[in-house]
């Protein structure tokens, strides 16, 4: 298959692994912040190809995992409200809220529907003028432009029964918080899909302010191994910078059109990340005239927040702990009965660990 097979060439993979073994002259820890990278790394068995002195740890890059329980509670309350339909991406269905998941809410009669895009939710609103259709807008710079375009479309058509419960976030501020909290890493495997939109320049502050290596990379095994080799070389030569390995998709400036749409509809805001707390200017909120689409304006009764149950998702998202360090991991918390959000999504660290390493 084109654009896939050439990046999974076994000979090239073995060659890259050999070069990494040769050039890795000390211990290195690199963090991948994108959940897609976490999933690829384990799916292709990348850790088994790396020498023990090269360690990859996962960061906060799975949008489902960093979604606050409050957000799930709000969606659930909206879904039970008279005349309301809540639309969401499949992963959100099983994320535990304070009382229940949206899947459980649906089984109890709440109007919860799966969609594959914001546009599909808007279409549902057009087809059901008598219902208020709420789209659960989660994700980073990769999905935010899609929401922005859809909101602009709804505005130009004068649709008044389409709403957005917005939890869009941006990645660079979270990466900075992790560094400020003192996680010891030598560099970042920077998120490939986010960078398609933002451009690699969004990460320039990392080498400049923190002296750390950065490589923006793709999702195939040769992409990831090449990125690891590039990071090792930056560390060895003490010349941290932002390099693009994923040249077939990423530029320095990014997708300007998508950025314009995002800026038209959203402005920066302080938002809460599950496990990381409130991060300054790390979220997007609807601006100006687009505020009329904001579903958070609907009054809902939310359950009282409950104390943590021992789940250490927060430490895992910050790269401080690994999934097997959690007392609940693989015993009380499994993909079938997740306690924390990291166990829910296919891109979550705990889910990935469970799938590929749980009984090692």
């Amino acid at each position, binding site marked *: *298959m084109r654009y*896939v097979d050439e990046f*999974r060439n*076994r000979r090239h*993979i*073995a060659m890259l*692994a050999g070069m990494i073994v040769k050039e890795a002259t000390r211990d290195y820890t690199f963090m991948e912040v994108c959940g897609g990278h976490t*999933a690829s790394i*384990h*799916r*292709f*068995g*990348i*850790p*088994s*190809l790396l020498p023990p002195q090269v360690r990859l740890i996962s960061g906060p890059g799975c949008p489902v995992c960093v979604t606050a329980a409050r957000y799930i509670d709000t969606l659930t309350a909206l879904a039970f409200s008279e005349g309301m339909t809540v639309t969401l991406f499949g992963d959100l269905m*099983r994320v535990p809220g304070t009382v229940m998941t949206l899947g459980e809410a649906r089984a109890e009669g709440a109007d919860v529907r799966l969609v594959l895009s914001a546009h599909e939710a808007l279409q549902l609103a057009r087809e059901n003028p008598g219902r208020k259709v709420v789209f659960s807008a989660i994700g980073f710079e990769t999905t935010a432009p899609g929401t922005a375009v859809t909101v602009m479309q709804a505005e130009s058509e004068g649709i008044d029964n389409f709403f957005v419960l917005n939890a869009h976030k941006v990645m660079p501020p979270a990466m900075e918080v992790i560094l400020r909290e003192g996680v010891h890493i030598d560099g970042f495997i920077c998120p490939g899909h986010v960078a398609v939109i933002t451009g690699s320049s969004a990460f320039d502050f990392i080498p400049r302010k923190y002296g750390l290596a950065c490589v923006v990379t793709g999702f195939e*095994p040769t992409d990831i191994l090449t990125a690891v080799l590039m990071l090792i070389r930056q560390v060895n030569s003490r010349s941290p910078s932002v390099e693009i390995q994923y040249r077939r998709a990423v530029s320095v400036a990014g997708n300007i059109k998508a950025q314009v749409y995002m800026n038209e509809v959203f402005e920066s805001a302080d938002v809460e990340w599950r496990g990381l707390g409130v991060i300054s200017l790390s979220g997007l909120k609807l601006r100006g005239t687009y505020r009329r689409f904001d579903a958070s304006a609907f009054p809902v009764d939310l359950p009282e927040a409950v104390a943590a149950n021992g789940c250490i998702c927060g430490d895992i998202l910050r790269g401080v702990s690994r999934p097997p360090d959690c007392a609940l991991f693989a015993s009380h918390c499994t*993909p*079938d009965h997740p306690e924390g959000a990291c166990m829910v999504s*296919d891109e979550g660290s705990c889910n990935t660990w*469970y*799938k*590929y*390493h*749980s*009984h*090692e």
Partner: protein
Amino acid sequence: MSEKITLSHGSGGRQAQALIRDHFAARFGMTGPMTDSALLAVPSALIAFTTDSYVIDPLFFPGGNIGKLAVCGTVNDLAVSGAVPKYLSAAFIIEEGFEIDQLAVIVSSMADEAESAGVKVVTGDTKVVEKGKCDRIFINTAGVGVLSEELMHVSSGSSVREGDRLIINGPPGDHAVTILAARSKLSFDKPMTSDCASLNHLIRRVVERPAAVHFMRDLTRGGLAAVLNELAGMTMCGIAVDESSVPVHEAVRGLCEILGFDPLSLASEGRVLIVADADEAEAIVERMHSDHQGRGAAIIGGIIAGREGRVILNSSAGGNRFLEMPSGQLLPRIC
């Protein structure tokens, strides 16, 4: 406008009798008097007996329909147990308003598939429920097959041992991808067709030397990943699969790449995993190649020492990882 199923078709009265006579009995070749039970001669002391219900959506898909599926599925459950399928029952739950023309097409496919598989539909039932109480049509089939003593071991995997080879009869996942594509109106450069097929003739070739075949199971829901994990759990053997030796159609790979599925977890309706003695695996594959349903047969791995109860995947990239039991609901109503 074509005639529709009404509640009276399920009432046991005149309309019901006519439906059974014209559409079921005629098509399934039931000529005798309508009795409460089929009376059958079974030329064996051992039988295999199985049942399955079919609720697939859409009812019609490239490569088959719910009727063909309802025959293949039950025939295959018998065949992979080592049995020779003989008799089927067919029970229909039909929603009021369903078109009789569509029912006729479905029943026709069942009759054709039963004939080519060499089984007889000998008993059945029809119920009609009010509009909205079921989705168009659901079918249940049960099947009886005769079993010889020397194949008793294949369903439990009790004679699986280190060194055995894993064989599949063709690329997995075509059925799941065809259903997904039909449901979401995706199109491919080369149209996808479901692998839905009866495998009993192929399996007769496989079990020519019964002692050489240690385990068989069809790759339905959960796909190869589920079957291998069940086998590992049942036998506490370690299993190694070589990802690059598993044949997968380009369209299936492509869709999996886009949607984040694993082809090894996708359902098929005409694929079987066979665990065979290492010395005879090649000969079995060769025999399979001469059957239409076994043309894509390949050895994909084996039973290994250590790693008890686990399935190891040698990924196509060269790394190793565990192949886990699929979790959650990937695609509802796929069969």
